[in-house]
């Protein structure tokens, strides 16, 4: 549904997005994940036609976003990072205005506005000035304006920013409920948001693609190696070599008084290890599986461990 190919955006000297390619399938929620200044907002602004790209190509519903920008704009609902609200308007008059510039025929206008108000839970504030409603309601008005023309594709830039925990949960629920016939791309720098809401993820850092794919695929592909971390009362070189002697174990290492025992994917040596611990009376304190998932990857990206 959304296809991005070799997209590049330069602001003068600064390269905000660098040769970015990814794909979002129809009817799925995809997360655009990355730390601050990763290029998430820039990517979304290009997709929605707010700014052009320096290079590359992108299509939405097989329509070229640069060549057929007007048709693309009709099928995209966009929640920008900064809410585009007019504080002196009422919620209702604002949504009426949006319905007009989104080219909803006047005969269907009222229905469309009412529906958007209903979905976003704005009934209680429909007559109030936007200036006077709370941040959470403003965010909902932002979502309502994105939904008003019943678009096939939704692009939400950090939809839960600035909300309290209860509202975050509610907004995530709302986004999930919008899935189905719609394809959704949300940006966030919170991994939990992706794992709770999304089917897939595109991870970018400094404008460059780090990883992309469905959550299952990604988690699977990162688990090339499996293993356990073991904490023992007994330590020392002999202990290390003891586990290294188990046939099939690829690597044993000592990190922060934890033994890391790794082996190739598909095998399982947990039984052998436990037996060894009991036989040699090594004093087990803790044993847990080693996670080498997107969580680790993302943390390493944010902490700057991985350079490009």
């Amino acid at each position, binding site marked *: 549904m959304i296809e991005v190919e070799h997209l590049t955006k330069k602001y003068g000297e600064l390269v905000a997005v660098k040769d970015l390619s990814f794909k979002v399938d129809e009817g799925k929620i995809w997360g655009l994940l990355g730390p601050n200044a990763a290029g998430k907002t820039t990517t979304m602004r290009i997709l929605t036609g707010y700014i052009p790209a320096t290079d590359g190509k992108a299509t939405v519903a097989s329509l070229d976003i640069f060549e057929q920008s007007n048709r693309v704009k009709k099928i*995209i609902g966009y929640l920008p990072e900064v809410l585009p609200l007019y504080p002196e308007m009422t919620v209702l008059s604002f949504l009426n205005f949006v319905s007009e*510039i989104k080219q909803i025929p006047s005969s269907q206008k009222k229905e469309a506005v009412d529906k958007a108000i209903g979905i976003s839970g704005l009934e209680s504030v429909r007559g109030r000035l936007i200036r006077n409603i709370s941040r959470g309601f403003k965010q909902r008005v932002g979502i309502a*304006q994105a939904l008003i023309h019943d678009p096939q594709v939704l692009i939400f830039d950090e939809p839960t920013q600035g909300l309290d925990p209860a509202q975050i949960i509610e907004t995530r629920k709302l986004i999930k409920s919008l899935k189905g016939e719609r394809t959704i791309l949300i940006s966030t720098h919170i991994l939990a948001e992706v794992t709770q809401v999304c089917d897939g993820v595109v991870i970018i850092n400094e404008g460059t693609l780090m990883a992309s794919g469905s959550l299952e695929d990604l988690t699977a592909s990162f688990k090339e190696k499996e293993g356990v971390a073991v904490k023992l009362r007994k330590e020392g070189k002999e202990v290390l070599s003891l586990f290294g002697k188990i046939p099939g174990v690829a690597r044993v290492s000592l990190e922060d008084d934890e033994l890391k025992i790794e082996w190739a994917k598909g095998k399982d040596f947990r039984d052998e290890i436990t037996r060894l611990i009991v036989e040699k009376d090594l004093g087990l304190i803790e044993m847990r599986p080693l996670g080498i998932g997107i969580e680790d990857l993302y943390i390493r990206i944010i902490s700057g461990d991985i350079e490009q």
Partner: protein
Amino acid sequence: MKNIWAICKKEIKTYFMSPIAYVIITVFLVLVGFFFYPLIWWFNSQSLQLAKNPYYYQQLNINQMVYSPFFHNMSIILLFMIPLLTMRLFSEEKKRQTDELLFTSPISVNQIIIGKYLASLFVLVVMLLLTGLLSIFTFVFGNPELAPVLNGYLGLFLMGAAFIAIGIFFSSLTENQIVSAILTFGALLLFLILNWTSPSAGGMWKDVLDYLSFFQHFNDLTRGILDTTDLVYYLSFIFLGLFLTHSIIQSRRWR
């Protein structure tokens, strides 16, 4: 067309839902009235004095004695008021980042510009119509010629329309409304006094400066004359202002 109307309606609502339009219109009317009253008073006293002398009495012309300076005053007041009217048009959208909504909607940049332009034009028309109330007074108690008065208003409208086009251009340049207003005011004032330098410039340049200056076209306007050169002059200003606005907006986004 519908898109232009949607934008225009929103802008007019914004003008009248906030105090901007009321303040501008009120201040404009107070100033205009303030200048109008002494003109009438002077004309009255002249008529009373000259009533004994039929020859001079015939020479008294309300169009020349009242309307000519009246239009002149109004155009100067407009020069102060229009920058305040246009300063928010694009600056405010950019500052609040509501332009992101406009430019990601299926409407063209031209439609947005024209919609906003027409909204300001509407406020200008309201302003001018309200000053028309003062004129009713002269028609009831005196007998000015109607045609030059209407012509003068048409000229004033065209001039205001040109001012607005220049204002909308400067509004697209900056997200700071104050800066936008100052630049507009500066540009308008510069065009007004452009011909002051023309005596020192020779030959063709003198003609060019004279032509470009508002003053030249002002004078025709205040006498209630509107010929095609003036019309072309104002229309080119409008076109140029809107065209440059479009270029600026496109280039900002394409950078």
